[in-house]
């Protein structure tokens, strides 16, 4: 197991897990979601292939009222 930090919360994660795997577990909405890993935007198209590494800081964001 490795640990990734998702929205500031440490989360034990299987080695080799991708962003798409993580989002499936988190049960995120099907649209209006964006992801950054270690401050870098990871585009939606890259989610299935982007494997998470130990210590990665992941931000998972979604639409909210504002502006």
């Amino acid at each position, binding site marked *: 197991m490795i640990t990734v930090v998702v929205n500031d919360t440490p989360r034990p994660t299987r080695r080799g897990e991708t962003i798409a795997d993580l989002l499936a577990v988190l049960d995120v909405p099907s649209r209006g979601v964006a992801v950054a890993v270690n401050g870098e*935007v990871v585009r939606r198209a890259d989610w299935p292939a982007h494997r998470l590494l130990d210590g990665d800081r992941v931000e998972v964001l979604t*639409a909210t*009222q504002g502006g």
Partner: protein
Amino acid sequence: MDDRFLLGGVEFGSRLILGTGGASSLQSLEQALLAGGTELVTVALRRIDPNTPAGLLDVLERCGVRLLPNTAGCYTAADAVRTAHLARDAFDTDWIKLEVIGDERTLLPDAVELLRAAERLVDDGFTVLPYTTDDPVLARRLADLGCAAVMPAGAPIGSGLGISNPHHIELIREAVRCPVILDAGIGTASDAARAMELGCDAVLLASAVTRAADPVAMAGAMRHAVVAGRLASQAGRIPVRRHALASTAAEGLPAW
């Protein structure tokens, strides 16, 4: 009268842009958006939270509005650029309401960071709508960078103070060719009408509607105010005089 509102190459029938912040429920928000007749609506990006009711995007889709993601809460150009890229990926739009805040008390923009972020985002192919101060020089600099509009604050966000410096809003209208959208400070319908009379092409407001005692009624008021102000701005108002000018002819007055 042909009075199309073109923004970022898109034609809009409504000159009222509504923010979604501050609404007490999605149901009240939906009713207010419909009452306002808006076609462009802001949304923000925040960390996913299981306790936040889902369905905002469904509401906006039902209302048939176009999304304008914002970079609210960003204090540096780097943060705003990153947020804009995240929003592009989340919402499939390259439109961005660019906010780079410089001060927590006033929430007024940081001019230096704003210019940096605007330049970068224009280069990255975004349709950039910057929230700016009412400084005509800064507005011109933003327009020169290729922003699709400039959006000066009438007064601080959420203050309801109206338009603190109407003269500067007029100067901004003269200084740039792109659309000018009054953004922030609107408290009530007369403020929105005034913005349009000063020559603004549209008005963006949120709190004035979402935090009103009756958001639906206020959204309707704003819809009419924007139309009234626009018509008045095009109608050629009478000059202001210090003394009266009789509207009834003096000729033919009987002599007693």
